[in-house]
């Protein structure tokens, strides 16, 4: 059922002769000799493309919206030629029982050899009843579908960290995928949404090299999440020089100064926005004059205002940042020290007068 690469190439109008020439050239380029050419041709003719099942849990579809806007490669090429996207209830034409039957079919026929891409996350409260997929709790469908998968891609901040639906107080107990599926390799592609090219590149990498990209400590592909927005920001010279936007629409804002003081989360956010940018490389938030809100970071909704540099610390139960808490504590200590010094001085003076003045009160 799943097309091989050869079939895709033929469908796109490439002749068998051109295909065989390509195989010979590839064998020669790799230094494998002429005997390898038929083997390459055979592999491309017979090896089916890895099927991808795209599930949707609690989400807003912004990941899908982003994905279909990919320019390099074009989303249509990814979907129609490169990967075998066998199930995606938002993009596919099929619906109902036949559509759901695909999940079972792929699970059986490609046991241990298909990829599950998850957009959104499962809510666990009330036995998962806050998100129903085809008449069943999404968490059940997710567990079932992932049981025989080769690897799982967590699309976006929802699947990776929990995002807005997991923000405090998280009434549905929305839970990121890696806390539900614990026995499979999971590639986190956070962002709200992730950058389109990052999404297609992660999929392309996995299909081309048949392995998962190198991940960082938190399970994100290093090639896109290895550096912070700040590290590659084109406004970085203004940061180092000490030139900041002090308030919206001031002189600094017009000159494109650094948005650090306006609470830009570029220094604490790992993503590729400042290099890859958005919408076919047109722009990204900072270039448009607004600070980064850190949407690809874990718990970014609960880490204080998007517009503060020193953000609120919620652990203290009150809306207060490190400077307010620390400043108050320091002031109290200062007052205590001063009072203690005063009492000490008084006590000492009393003691001294008691000794030094003859006939004085003692």
């Amino acid at each position, binding site marked *: 059922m799943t097309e091989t690469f050869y079939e895709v190439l033929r469908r796109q109008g490439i002749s068998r002769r051109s295909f065989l020439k390509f195989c010979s050239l590839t064998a020669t380029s790799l230094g494998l000799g002429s005997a390898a050419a038929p083997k390459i041709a055979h592999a491309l003719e017979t090896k089916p493309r890895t099927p991808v099942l795209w599930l949707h849990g609690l989400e807003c579809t912004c990941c899908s919206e982003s994905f279909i806007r990919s320019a390099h490669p074009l989303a249509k090429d990814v979907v129609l030629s490169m990967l075998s996207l066998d199930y995606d209830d938002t993009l596919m034409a099929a619906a109902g029982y036949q559509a759901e039957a695909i999940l079972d079919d792929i699970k059986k026929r490609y046991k241990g050899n298909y990829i599950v891409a998850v957009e959104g996350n499962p809510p666990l409260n009330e036995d998962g009843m806050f998100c129903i997929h085809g008449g069943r709790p999404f968490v059940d469908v997710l567990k079932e579908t992932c049981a025989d998968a080769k690897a799982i891609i967590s699309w976006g901040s929802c699947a990776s960290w929990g995002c807005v639906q997991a923000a405090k107080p998280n009434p549905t107990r929305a839970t990121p995928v890696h806390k539900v599926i614990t026995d499979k390799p999971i590639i986190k592609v956070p962002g709200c949404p992730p950058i389109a090219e990052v999404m297609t590149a992660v999929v392309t990498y996995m299909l081309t090299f048949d392995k998962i990209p190198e991940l*960082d400590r938190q399970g994100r592909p290093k090639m896109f999440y290895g550096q912070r927005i700040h590290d590659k920001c084109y406004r970085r010279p203004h940061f180092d020089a000490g030139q900041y936007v002090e308030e919206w629409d001031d002189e600094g804002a017009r000159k494109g100064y650094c948005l650090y003081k306006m609470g830009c*989360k570029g220094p604490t956010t790992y993503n590729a926005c400042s290099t890859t940018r958005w919408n076919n490389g047109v722009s990204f938030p900072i270039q448009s004059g607004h600070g980064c809100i850190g949407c690809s970071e874990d718990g970014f909704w609960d880490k*204080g205002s998007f517009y503060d540099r020193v*953000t609120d610390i919620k652990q203290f139960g009150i809306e207060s940042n*490190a400077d307010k808490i620390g400043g108050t504590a320091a002031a109290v200590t200062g007052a205590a020290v001063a009072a203690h*010094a005063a009492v*000490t001085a008084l006590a000492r003076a009393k003691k001294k007068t008691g000794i030094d003045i003859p006939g004085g009160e003692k």
Partner: protein
Amino acid sequence: MLAQQDALEAEQQARLVKAVYVYEAPVRLWHWVNALCITLLAITGYLIANPLPSMPGDASQHFVMGTIRVIHFSSAYIFAVGFIGRIYWAAVGNHHARQIFILPIRSRQWWGEIFHELKWYLFLVKEPKKYVGHNPLAQLAMFLFFTIGAVYMICTGFALYGEGLGAESWAGHMFGWVITAVGGNSQQVHSLHHMGLWVTLIFVMIHIYAAIREDIMSRQSMISTMISGWRMFKD
């Protein structure tokens, strides 16, 4: 003539001063280098979180935040290396050098004397006890505020520093786990590290006040001890 008078006066009125050598040269040097580092770290740290007003003109003419960060990072390196050196000295130096690292928590007498020191600070006892090294309360405070505090600031600080150097850097390898440990969001580590600034400030306030007060009120020298190394007893 005058000299004779002074000699006579000294003969009549001078008390016999007893002195013990407490703080060896590396400890004293470390203390004052630390004082400088902490001052620089606190000021630059505050300015990193709350930057100075914007500089006018072309970006290439200034390096204000850059300089502030360089000072912060250089001081941090010196502070951290000094701390490692201090741990080494705790091993090879005299027993006073170990006081801020190891607490005699099993000694009931020690806890009792902490209580006595507390009473002294609350004006409940008239005379403090004599100590060659830190008094038990000071020892406890040094351990909690300084030793634990320094480890905390080094770990959180170098975790943040490692973000700039990159995950593959030595700092990323050695301290990158701190970011994951507090929930994976680096903004959280920034907030925690910034809280450390205020804890340090409170420590410095109490430390200096207690040192000056004890110098005047207690039965032994304080400030000059950290300069000369000798603890003088007044009675």
